[in-house]
């Protein structure tokens, strides 16, 4: 028997005005897999990410993560359960230091509760030390150790992508949703990012779902590829099979734009 999927998306619908951005999309993500989500611009990939992670509420449809529905849960509650996303345009906290960016993500921190800080001002010191040690370890792993004290806003675009991934790892995620992790990253940083993904999966069993336009990355680094077009999933298969699928080629080249998708 196959293990239950870590993420199940069923029949999600969402319209923006007249645009049916997501029109009945559904798929599974297998536990421990690296799954790519591809499709032409406007296919609804990022919108679907927003729905899955609770940032946007779907009109219809169900999302369940790790066996429990998360459809109407707020984004912070979903992230705290271990389904963590990154953004297409990185969201670093510019006027905080790199280390502070990491510490914001530290889970179960009593120092983040107003009452604890007011009533027991020392009770959080130990957790802060632990979180700091973990943050510095991760920053070293990602080659950002030297920047810990710098404002995050001074990092290069590629370094910000690394910081966002490192920061997400502070939460100890089990499913990472990465929105175009390679975009705007130079090739050597990109290779590092991919190595990190491979290592996280191998060592900690982290599952990845990532949106990507770089076909070489998609074909060589994923076990499964989901293809979206016009708000629907038009293919869901192994990379080599997807590459040969005529519907996928049509979607990218726009050959059958006038016809409703099969």
């Amino acid at each position, binding site marked *: 028997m196959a293990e239950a999927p870590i993420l199940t998306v069923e029949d999600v619908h969402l319209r923006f005005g007249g645009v049916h951005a997501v029109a009945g999309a559904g798929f599974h993500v297998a536990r421990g897999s690296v799954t790519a989500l591809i499709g032409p611009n406007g296919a609804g990939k990022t919108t679907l990410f927003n729905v899955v992670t609770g940032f946007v509420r779907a009109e219809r449809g169900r999302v369940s993560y790790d066996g429990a529905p998360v459809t109407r849960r707020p984004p912070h*509650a979903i992230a705290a359960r271990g389904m963590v996303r990154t953004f297409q345009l990185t969201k670093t906290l510019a006027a905080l230091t790199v280390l502070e960016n990491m510490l914001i993500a530290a889970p179960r921190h009593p120092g983040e509760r107003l009452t604890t*800080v007011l009533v027991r001002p020392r009770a959080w010191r130990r957790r802060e030390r632990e979180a700091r040690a973990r943050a510095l370890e991760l920053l070293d792993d990602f080659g950002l150790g030297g920047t810990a004290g710098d404002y995050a806003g001074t990092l290069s675009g590629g370094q910000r992508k690394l910081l966002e991934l490192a920061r997400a790892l502070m939460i100890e995620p089990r499913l990472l949703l990465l929105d175009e992790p390679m975009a705007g990253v130079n090739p050597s940083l990109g290779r590092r990012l991919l190595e990190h993904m491979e290592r996280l999966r191998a060592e900690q069993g982290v599952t990845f779902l990532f949106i990507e336009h770089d076909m070489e990355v998609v074909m060589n680094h994923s076990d499964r590829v989901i293809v979206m077009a016009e708000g629907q999933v038009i293919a869901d298969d192994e990379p080599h099979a997807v590459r040969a699928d005529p519907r996928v080629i049509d979607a990218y080249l726009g050959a059958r734009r006038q016809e409703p998708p099969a």
Partner: protein
Amino acid sequence: MTTLAVSLSAFGRPEFWIGVGILVAIYAILTLGLQLNIGYTGIYNFGQVGFMAVGAYAMAVLVVEAGWSFWASLPAATLIAVAFAVLLGLPTLRLRTHYFAIATIAFAEIVRYVIQNADGLTGGSQGVLGFEIAWQTIALSLQADLGLAPELALVPLLIVAWVTLAVLFAVLLALGRSPWGRMLRAVREDEDAVRALGKNAYAYKLQSFAVAGAVGAVSGYLLALYLSFLSPDAFLASVTFISFAMLIVGGLGSFPGVVVGAFIVQVVLEGTRYLQLPLTDHQVASLRYILIGLVLILVMALRPQGILGRRQEMVLRG
């Protein structure tokens, strides 16, 4: 013709500095709350004077109308101000920055109009008297103990105002440096990033607003003792705007900057009383705001981050 003259003798009199000192402390406390909201959390609270009014009137009404002791009324009035902040924040903190700003201005004005018109409870435009008897007893005995001359009668209030400021300053500084304060700064930078990291950005905004409400109420008690008479005219929207001027002069994100800004702006405001100019009182009142404007322009030109603000943070915040 009256001659243009500036008499500096007032600046040599202790009464001037005692009065300025009390007002600096009151405004600094009010502005500490604003700093937490604007400098730390990035929520544009334009109604801080509303909490000052709610606190002062809740205290006065509890003492005068309900017969509470002055000391018991203080924590109760603080809780009332916090409840106002939570009730106002719950629906409005979901709004984007400028909509929230408008909602808070409206709140403060509604509070003032209600005070003005609920005569039965607040005395309306006639104001409230007689809430500070418990304090007067202490102030008089302190005055006697310290052997203060009658013109120094406000020294006890000066001391209490600055001790209160020192305590609240220390508390807010500790809060600001705690992981809780770090989370507020993260919310200021990007709420969605904070949510994506598993933290409830909305709850932090609400907490920040509630703390500002409590701090605003405390400044209201001290103002009430200073005036020994509460009227709605003490809580005009201009109080919040003066507080903003102090915040900007002192520097966003800096609690020490609040005290520096409060001092500079208050000296300009009070100092103009002693300029002898061929102007009506009304014109002098306007002139004070022109001078505050000039101070702001000067600070913006020479040190846009404010006197104690951090330039790099201002640039990165964009």
